[in-house]
Every structure is written in C-alpha cells, then in structure tokens.
C-alpha cells in the first residue's frame, strides 16, 4: 500500500465507519465490531505512514481545488504524525473501554454515539494531516459539529445547556476569530499552505502579525485558553468515553495542535521570535495554567477537576509554542503526546468509578482503592504522568518545556511551571491516596448526591465498599493499556522526540 493511499484511507475509514455503524445498529455486537475493526484498520494505516515520515519524508496527497487557487490537500509532517498516532492508538483503547462503559451504563442512543464518535475521529485525522489552513479549518468545524451530539447525548436540560455553551464558544471563536485570521492571512499572502519557516514573513508588519497571532490563538477555541475555556467543563456532561478521548485527547489536542502548527508553519518560529509579539500570550497562557489549577482544586466532582486540569495542561502546550524557541516547541509537541496518555487514563478511571461504584464526587471516594485496586492504581500512574514525575512519560515533556523557558530566558515562566506542578500534586494525588489509605467509614454521612445514586441501582450496595466490584473487564483492559503507555513513554520517548526535532530543525 502506498503512503498516499494510506493517508486518504486514514481519513476515510472512520467516516466509512460512521456510515456502517448505523446500518449495523440493530445488533450491538456487530455494531461494536465495526467500530473496533475501523479503529484497528486506522491504526494499521497510521503505522504504514509512520516509517515514511520518520525517514524524513513529507508525503502529500492532493484532493481537489475548492476555491480558485486554494485546494484541499493532505500533507503529513512530523507533528501531524505524532497527533495522528496518538489519536488512532487511543481510539482502539477508547472503543474497548466504551463497550464496557456504555453497556454497563445502559446508555440510550448508543448507535448515534458510536457513529458520531467515528466522525469525530475522522475529523481528527483530517486535522492531523491537513496540508493547509483551509483543510484544517474544514475538519476543525466538522469536529466541532460532530461532537455536539455527543456532548448533548443525554438530552436532559443540563446536557442541552452544556451543548449550547459548547457549540456557542467553539463555533463563535472559530467563525468570529479563526476564520477571520485565516482569510486575512490569505489576503496578505495569497496562500494558506503549511510551509517550513512560515508564510507571513515579510508580508505583514509587526502590529498585523500581533493581531493575527491573537486571533489565531484565541480563535482556536479548542485550545481552551482563558477566557474561552468555559466549553470544556461544560462538555463534561457527555458520557465518559467522550470526555476521555475527545475532551482529553482529540478535540483539545486538535486545538493546541493547531496552535503549534500555526506558530510553526504559518508564522514561522524565527519570524515570530524576531518580532516578539507572542510575549504577552505567554503570560496569558501562564495565567491560564495557574488559575485553572487553582479552580481544579476547588472542584469536588472528579470529571470537573480533571477538566480544569486539562485546561491548565493545554496552556503548557500553548506556552511552549508561544516561547517560539526550539526546545519550547519540542516540549509542546511532546506534551501533546504525554498528556494525552496521562489524562485519558485518569478519565477512564473516573468513568470506572462511576459505573462500578456510582461515585462522581471526590469526597465519596475514600477507601475506594480497596474495592477497585486496579483502577485506583491506574489513576495513580496517570496522576504521576500528568504531574510530570518519573517514571512516567510526562516528565520528558515538562523537562523540555522548562528548558524552553530557560532558552527564552523567562525565569518567571519557569517558576509558573514549577508552581503549577506543585498544584497538580495537590489536586491529583490526594485522590488515589485517600482511595487507598482512608477507610470508607470516614466518608461523610449520606448526602444528597449519594441518595441520588442509590436510586439508580439497588443491586449495588455501595454503602459498603466491599460490595463494589471492579469495573467491567473491557474497561480494565483499556485502563491497563493507557497506563502502561504512560510508563512506556518514559522509557522510550525517542520516536516522539525525534519527530519533534525534525519539526524544529528540518
């Protein structure tokens, strides 16, 4: 199979899956087989593409001309390769996980769920492989729209309201700011192709570049830079697999991925560094890191805490990109990968707590480690990775980000990274610790949400943790794979690092 064909198929397969899934909707087993098969094919396709990119090639596939002089085409460069690799690998894990989760949870409209999930994945691949800003924007919007039904999946008032916030902010920023930035770039340069060294150099003055950069950075609402972060906590009403893959990996990473890509290939690192208009955005990112971490500490709902943690971690990546130094960029790219594995593990665990123990609030989770030791262990591993402690992959990306701040001579930002890591420790680690070392009796006496839970299933006697069993096997497998991933990336970060090095030093 040629690489070019593989690229096209990599985008096409999930969409084909989205067509097949409703057709197989009547028989759940068949439907989920379709999902898994698609995911497996996708991973295979990505593995076909990888060697070509790792060897320094930049395979390109021309699709069609959309506007005169402006085509839709794919171009796989190393950064996109990283993103595609993570997304395709984690789709398998998530699919396995979803099967356990959705069945245990007796969700309605599962067919719709899997179908839109597949579309979202296809859009993610499209973003990863986009050859120019137009192509990227198309898939960016497809991703927004295809995830809306997933967010509003439950159909309750809450879900609808969350869906409105979600769509409002994502479409609002992308139409209002990002599209404007794209068209402006087009008007200035006459091209939108991702080009090494950027396309804006010499085409615009400092002020214009500054405004453009702001338009891009804030316009990419999926990067959840404050003040456009509200959609992410709102999106947590979605079923957990959605939160895990999409709102910890695909969607948000699509955002920061786009930011990094724009910085590298539209503005050009050197050009942007010379003009120096990105500095204030470093501080916006730094502020987002700290504020989001602090907010995370106040959240008792586990998913909400994780969501704010995500916001904070995304800004690491933006910060790295805005440093516009080689090491900063490397750190950004690696953090995309490392954070993905760590955070998805955490979300998987959160979902497992919910379906097995019906616990969504952190305060209810004392002693849960005794009933669900594997899950809680995995949570611990994920936490370490997100914090950036050895022996987890998260260490490397934080390392390079820190080096990046030093390279740029921004000690203050280095301090922000340190403080933030401490905050990470403070809001993540207590959860597994209490899970293991507190006794369930210390749980606060029955509270409102507790009662609410008990209405759901009387079969589970969850006042006593002994009645709680581990999550379904499918879930455990997925959790095991991703947490193992965190470990593996500590020992073998080279592929990611090498790819990123190719990005900054082509």
């Amino acid at each position, binding site marked *: 199979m040629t690489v070019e064909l593989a690229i096209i198929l990599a985008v096409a397969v999930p969409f084909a899956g989205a067509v097949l899934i409703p057709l197989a909707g009547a028989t759940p087993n068949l439907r989920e087989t379709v999902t898994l098969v698609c995911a497996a094919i996708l991973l295979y396709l990505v593995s076909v593409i990888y060697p070509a990119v790792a060897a320094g090639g930049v395979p390109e596939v021309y699709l069609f001309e959309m*506007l005169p002089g402006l085509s839709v085409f794919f171009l796989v460069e190393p950064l996109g390769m990283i993103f595609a690799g993570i997304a395709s690998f984690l789709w398998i894990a998530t699919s396995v996980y979803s099967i356990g989760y959705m069945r245990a949870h007796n969700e309605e409209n599962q067919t719709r769920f899997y179908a839109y999930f597949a579309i979202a994945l296809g859009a993610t691949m499209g973003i990863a492989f986009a050859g120019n800003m137009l192509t990227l924007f198309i898939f960016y*919007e497809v991703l927004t729209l295809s995830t809306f039904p997933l967010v509003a999946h439950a159909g309750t008032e809450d879900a609808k309201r969350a869906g409105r916030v979600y769509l409002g902010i994502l479409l609002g920023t992308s139409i209002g700011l990002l599209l404007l930035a794209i068209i402006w770039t087009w008007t200035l340069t006459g091209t939108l192709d991702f080009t090494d060294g950027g396309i804006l150099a010499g085409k615009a003055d400092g002020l214009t570049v500054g405004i453009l950069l702001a338009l891009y950075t804030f316009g990419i609402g999926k990067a959840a830079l404050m003040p456009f972060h509200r959609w992410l906590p709102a999106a947590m009403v979605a079923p957990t697999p959605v939160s895990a893959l999409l709102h910890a990996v695909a969607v948000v990473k699509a955002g920061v991925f786009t930011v990094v890509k724009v910085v590298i290939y539209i503005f050009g690192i050197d050009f942007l560094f010379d003009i120096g208009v990105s500095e204030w955005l470093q501080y916006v990112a730094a502020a987002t890191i700290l504020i989001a971490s602090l907010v995370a500490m106040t959240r008792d709902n586990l998913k909400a805490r994780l969501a704010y943690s995500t916001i904070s971690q995304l800004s690491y990546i933006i910060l790295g990109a805005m440093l516009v130094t080689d090491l900063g960029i490397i750190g950004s790219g690696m953090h995309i990968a490392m954070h993905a594995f760590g955070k998805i593990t955490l979300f998987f665990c959160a979902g497992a707590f919910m379906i097995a123990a019906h616990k969504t609030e952190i305060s209810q989770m004392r002693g849960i480690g005794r009933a669900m030791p594997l899950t809680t262990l995995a949570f611990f591993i994920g936490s370490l990775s997100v914090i950036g402690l050895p022996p987890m992959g998260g260490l490397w990306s934080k390392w390079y980000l820190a080096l990046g701040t030093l390279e740029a001579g921004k000690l203050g930002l280095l301090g922000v990274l340190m403080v933030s890591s401490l905050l990470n420790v403070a809001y993540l680690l207590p959860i597994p610790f209490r899970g293991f070392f507190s006794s369930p009796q210390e749980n606060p006496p029955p509270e409102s949400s507790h009662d609410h839970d008990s209405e759901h299933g009387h079969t589970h006697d969850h006042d006593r943790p002994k009645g709680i069993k581990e999550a379904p096997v499918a879930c455990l497998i997925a959790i095991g794979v991703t947490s193992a991933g965190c470990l593996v990336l500590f020992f073998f970060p080279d592929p990611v690092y090498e790819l990123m090095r190719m990005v900054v030093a082509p």
Partner: protein
Amino acid sequence: MIAAQYPALQVVLALLAAPVCLILRRPRAAWAVATVITWISLAIALSLLGRVWETGVILYPMGDWAAPWGIEYQIDTVNAFMLVIVTLIGSVVMPFARASVEAEIEEERIYLFYCMYLLNLAGLLGIAITGDVFNLFVFLEISSLSSYVMISLGRDQRALTAAYRYLVMGTIGATFYIIGVGMMYMMTGTLNMADLATILPAVADSRTIQVALGFLTVGLGLKLALFPLHLWLPNAYTYAPSAVTVFLAATGTKVAVYAFIRIFFTVFGGVEVFNAGFIPEILAVLAALAMIGASVVAIYQTDVKRLLAYSSIAQIGYMVLGISMVTVTGLAGTIVHLFNHAIMKGGLFMAMGCILFKIGSVQLDQFEGLGKRMPVTMAAFVAGGFSLIGVPLTVGFVSKWYLVQAALEKGWWLAVAAILVSSLLAVIYIWRVVEVAYFRPPPKGSAEVSEAPLSMLVPLWILIGASYYFGIDATRTLDIAFVAAETLFGPPQ
C-alpha cells in the same frame, strides 16, 4: 440556427406556455407543461452561459431593430449566470410543486397557479436578460403582479394582506424606478443600457441625474427588500404557499439585486458614482444593519418560515454589502452569493414545504421530535442550516469567505465584524430549531415516521446537495462570478 434564437426563446417559451395552461384547464396537464418548459428553459440558459463563456457578449436585437432604436437583449456573463440561477431553481421547484400545490391550493385554481408561475418565471428571466431600462420595468411588472397573486393564495388569511402590502410597496417601488428612468431619459434621450452608459458621463453632474439615481436606488431597494424597505417581505414569505416561497425567496429578490447591480455598474458604470459619492457608505451601513438587525429578529420568531424570511433579509444585506464595496472581489462575492443563497434558501424553504405538507404547521413548537418523525427532511434542514451559518464545505462558507476577503482588502473592519456577528446569530436561530427537533421528544400520539413524498424530498435534496457540491468545489461558480464582476467593471460593451 435555432441556437441563435435562444435569447428570445429563453423568455418567450415561458410566456407562450402560460396561455397554454389557461386553455388546458387541467391541473396535471398544466403542471406537465410548466415542468417541461422550465426544463427546456434551463437547458437554454445553460447553453447561453456556455456561449457567453466562450465567445463573449451575445446581442439580440428584438425584431432586428438595432439598439438604441429597438429593444436589445445583451447577455454577458452576469445575466447569463442569473438566467441559470432562475431557471435552475424554477426547474427544481416544479417536481416539488406538484404535491405541495395540490395540498395547499384548491384544485380548480391550480392550472391558473401554474399559469402565474410561468409568467413569473418569464418576468424574472425578462428582467435578467434585457438591455433596456424600460423593458426591464415591463417585465418587472409581469413578475411582480404574478408574485402578488401567488402570495395571496396562501392558506392563511394573512396571505391576503401580505400580498396587498407587497402590491402597494412594490408598485411604489416600480413607480420610483419609472421616475428615475424618466429623468435619465430626459437627459440622454435613450433607454438602452449600453447607450446610457456612454452618454451618462457627459451629464452626470446634473442634479437631474443625481436625483434619478436616488430614485432608481429606492425603487429597486424596495424590490430587493433592502433594509429598511424590507417590510413587505416577512409576511409575504411566511404566508405564501410553500412552492411560491421557495421560488420567490430563491429568485425574486435575487433578480432585483441583479437589476440593482446592472443599473449601478453598467448603466452608471462610466460615471463612477460610487467612487465619488456617499452612496457606498450609506449602502454599507444599511446592509450591516440588515445583517445584524434581521438576524436578531429572526432569533425571536416562533414561526420557522418567518425566521427564514428574516434570515433572507440578512442575507440580502450580505449581497448589498458586497456591492457597496465597489471592488471586484466584493462584487464577485455578491454574485456568487446570489447563486449560493438561492440554492440554500430554496432548499430550506423546501424543507418547510415538506413539514407543512405533513404537519400542517411550521410553528416552532410543532417541531418537537421532528428529527425522528421526519428524519430525511430534518437532516436536509440541518444541512441547509449549516450552509446558512457558513460552515466549511457549504456554499455559505464560500460566499462568506469572499465577502470577508473583500472587506479585508478594503480595510472595512466593521463590515468584517458585521459579517461574522451575523453568522454567529445564524448559529443561534438555526440551533433553536435543531434543538427542538432533535432534543425534545415527539408529542404523544404522533405518528412514528411519516415522511413527505419522494417527489418533494428529491428536489429538496437536490438543492441541499447542490449547496454542498458547490461548496466543496466552488471553482466553477467563482470563476464565473469573477469574470462577471470584471465584466461589470470593464468598459461598457
């Protein structure tokens, strides 16, 4: 041989078919005649566009009396494209109309309805094709009178008053136009557009011509529903029979916009009124007000047809904004949006027609659970709604792209903001409908799935499909639009 006569046949066939319908007096027969004629007209329009594309302007003097003594058709890329738009919508509406019209109009009136429809089509084509300002008025009246009649046929009694108000405002508009034409004629002695274009610069400084321009603007502004002259439109679109709304919304105002462009750029092209006067600024402000104001009003509508009608006013704002920029890009954006808006709004109103056909109402609260009950129709609505919002891969995105680009080139930041804000407002009003249709359970006792007949769904999806096809590969339409815009700026031919 016969191909040389296409310009005449383009209009005359539809004209000739109208009395045939009157004689036939049978609904189905009238429908068949109308369908065949519109399809032939489409073929003619396409072939004319092809010929213009290859060989340039086609001149067709009526009765072989050379202009300016006789009336001459002048077909360049701009109006060839308009002809295609009008006939395209006309032909797609026909299969849709059969079931829809039978459901909404009494049987013994249907043949007359098709008679009106053909006259309206002929009128619009006549406006688009002619090179004579007075002839334009005559055909404007044919199309206007027939649209008043067709609007009044709506089932709701408010259709009557809507038609009446449209009649009064439309006639005022036509009379203003005629005053303007009279003044131009007074100063130049000619009615032929090309001839006017060569003579006007010499007398452009006279106050008479300035006033004439003002009256032409207001007169056509009324016809194209330029804010604040749009008051006739919402009711007219809301209460007219579905097929009529589809056709008028997709073509009526578009042809008026075309006439507007024609007067300003061809007739007054040499005068460069735009570069000197304050007219562009006024137009731009009105356009922006329309885009924002009408979109906001649309959000608060409970009748979905009415919501779309207000959205049309906003979209007309886009077009006028493109005109007011007086750049090739802006004008190309307007021209391509003429086409794009025609197909997407046509599609959306067709979806309304399907719902009206099945549910009998397009009030928002009737949409509950419609995503399940009429999945095909609602999917089309959502797809068309995306286009209205301007999601990439839709035609709406393409038009918006060029309008924003034009505004950027011109440095009109407020215009850029207006376009973007207006699309965000579109998200809101479209999403209100989507939420009700998909996230509310169907009312109890409603039938499980009951879709509109295929004869309505197929045309619906043709238009929606077209709005994606031309959104994915917009090169063809844009090439035409740019050539058209350059023609308008070029020396008068």
